């Protein structure tokens, strides 16, 4: 009895070890994905995973890429640096992938950069921070699809200049996203001759920002930029309403989740923020070159999963199509994929990509559209 149990145990362990060998054909194109599917950043990873699975199925049902099936290896980073490092190593050393999509967060992306640089496998991050692809000499194998923070700041400042706003207050969440935005806001202000009269922060767990807002009010700000990606950002417009602050509120592209607009309630009306066009595709003019792609993705995703599409899934959509197109053009040699990515062009959900050896993101400020909130919905800003 005991011996047979032991034998079964041994067989199971052996099967587990050979697991990955068994089910991927030799000819398949192997692409790895690392997303924060569970854990504190699951709202990023979940739509990303669903998106890549949907597209891969679509590609394979249409006969694959050049007759090769696209085989995705999806790993869960749980939003944790150590787990992401292990996941990327596993994809490279055990699953022999030719390219990696993800990770979802900026921190996890930074943690895995040394590994892909050394292993020489192209990685397309789905995270925001610009430092992931800058300086490009040290990021030979690293790309990213989300739009740049600095372009978002530029769009906000351009709109302010148009409206004659000079003195502003900024408030940001103390996360990687908020911190990176705060730095860009301060760095670029001089270029547009904008004065930052107040610079406040809040932690993701805060439930009231009245103290910070009073300081900003007293400093005489003519507008406020709230740069954050956490749910707490919806409290800012509510507190402003209570304080009867009627200055214009700008948000970052981190506001790009309809839930945040709904959470802000009536106080959210009139918030202006730059974001990718996916969020307001219905109010986009028909001649916009991105409209067909955006509608296609949105309709497919929303029918399949019965939930609202998010920009984060869109980043994974763009990343996977960049990789799929490169695979189609040059096959699954990592070096060739990298070279192909550097000259890729793609009409994606995040904008119109035009990558180059000097720009591993390939988007400019036109990737952003100025949006506003109208009764809990995002629409394109008219003026």
């Amino acid at each position, binding site marked *: 009895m005991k011996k047979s149990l032991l034998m079964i145990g041994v067989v199971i362990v052996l099967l587990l070890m050979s697991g990955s060998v068994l*089910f991927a054909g030799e000819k398949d194109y192997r692409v790895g994905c690392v997303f924060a599917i569970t854990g504190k950043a699951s709202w990023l990873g979940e739509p990303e995973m669903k998106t890549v699975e949907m597209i891969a199925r679509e590609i394979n049902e249409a006969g694959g890429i050049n007759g090769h099936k696209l085989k995705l290896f*999806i790993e869960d980073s749980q939003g944790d*640096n150590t787990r992401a490092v292990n996941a990327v190593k*596993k994809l490279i050393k055990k699953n022999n992938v030719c390219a990696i999509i993800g990770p979802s967060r900026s*921190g996890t992306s930074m943690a895995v*950069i*040394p590994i892909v640089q050394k292993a020489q496998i192209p990685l397309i991050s789905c995270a925001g921070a610009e*430092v992931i692809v800058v300086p490009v000499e040290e990021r030979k194998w690293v790309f990213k699809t989300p739009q740049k923070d600095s372009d978002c700041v530029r769009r906000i400042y351009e709109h302010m200049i148009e409206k004659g706003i000079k003195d502003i207050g900024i408030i940001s969440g*103390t*996360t990687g996203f908020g911190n990176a935005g705060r730095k860009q806001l301060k760095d670029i202000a001089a270029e547009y001759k904008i004065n930052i009269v107040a610079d406040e922060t809040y932690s993701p767990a805060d439930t009231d920002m009245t103290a910070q807002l009073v300081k900003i009010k007293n400093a005489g700000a003519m507008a406020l930029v709230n740069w954050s990606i956490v749910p707490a950002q919806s409290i800012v417009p509510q507190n402003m309403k209570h304080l009867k602050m009627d200055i214009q509120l700008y948000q970052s592209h981190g506001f790009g989740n309809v839930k945040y607009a709904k959470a802000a309630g009536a106080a959210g009306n009139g918030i202006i923020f730059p974001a990718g066009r996916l969020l307001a595709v219905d109010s986009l003019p028909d001649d916009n070159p991105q409209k067909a792609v955006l509608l296609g993705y949105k309709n497919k995703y929303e029918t399949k999963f019965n939930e609202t599409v998010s920009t984060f899934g869109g980043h994974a959509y763009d990343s996977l199509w960049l990789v799929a197109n490169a695979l189609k053009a040059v096959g699954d040699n990592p070096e060739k994929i990298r070279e192909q990515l550097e000259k890729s062009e793609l009409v994606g959900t995040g904008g119109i990509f035009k990558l180059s050896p000097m720009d591993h993101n390939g988007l400019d400020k036109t990737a952003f559209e100025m949006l506003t909130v109208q009764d809990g919905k995002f629409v394109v800003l008219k003026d």
Partner: protein
Amino acid sequence: MGWKNYMGMLVLFLMVAAAPLIIRNDYYLGVLVFAALNCLACIGLCLLMGYAGQISLGHAAFIGIGAYASGYMTVRLGLSPWTAMAAGIFLSAGVALIVGIPALRLKGHYLAMATLGFGSILHIVAVAAIDITGGPGGLNNIPAISLFGIALNTDTRFFYFSWAIVLIGLYFGFNLIHSRVGRGLRALHGSEDAAGSLGINTASYKIQIFVLSSVYASISGSLYAYYINYIDPGPFSVMHSVLLVTMVAVGGLHKIWGAVFGAVLLTLLPEFLSSFSEYFQVIGIEYKPDYDTLIYGLILLIIMLFLPEGLFGGFGDAIHALQGKMKRLREARE
């Protein structure tokens, strides 16, 4: 230090020496490096929890101090990794002393709360002190550490290095608990009042062991920084402190080997479960990554329910029980 521990260390040494010859995959070696780093922190925590009987839910903060000291001094000040690591050790020990003197006057839940609070505070400092820690954006380009002129920049090299440090840590730990101090600590664990009446300076012992365990954690943190070459506040959160305590508890509180066992097991388990999912895909069962978390929790629950002394203690008991049963069976047959 008894012959059993020497034998154990010898076996561990041989396993470590042989591992890279058998495992030729950097991924598995990398996982074992993290196991070594967790081992180191857990050995320190085990000395504090299992021997001195004091709980700490803030140990990830000491790992963080080590990691940030190493990161800051190598990247921003250009010091050598060894100097930075030594500075981290002194900094951790200093902080442990300052925190320990008031905190260790507390007992039970109050001590747990105090250390928990300390861990949270240091995490907030790491997030907010942007000029020093880089804030949530972290510090990157941390150099690799070199030993005798050899840069430890491959997984195999770092694997040997990290486990060598674990072995040294184990050796110190065993020597300590088999010394006068160790016996005093165990008396302290049994009953603080009784230990005091026997002339053991309980307050001083508790602080010394707290400082020592912070040094183990700090070294583990420095090695983490040199291995990943990037740090941000994420890995040093309160949840990591809880994980460390779980590792020690799962392995077995009252034996250093239990800490080693628990740390290795709980580091390998998530990776094992993630390979498990691939196996399910082979036989056509749709397996979601969310299930990993469930199974992980279930395993911990079973261990804690049925082996409250931890795996290491539990196995010992199980073997004893089995021997007794066999003996009775044999007697019954005769």
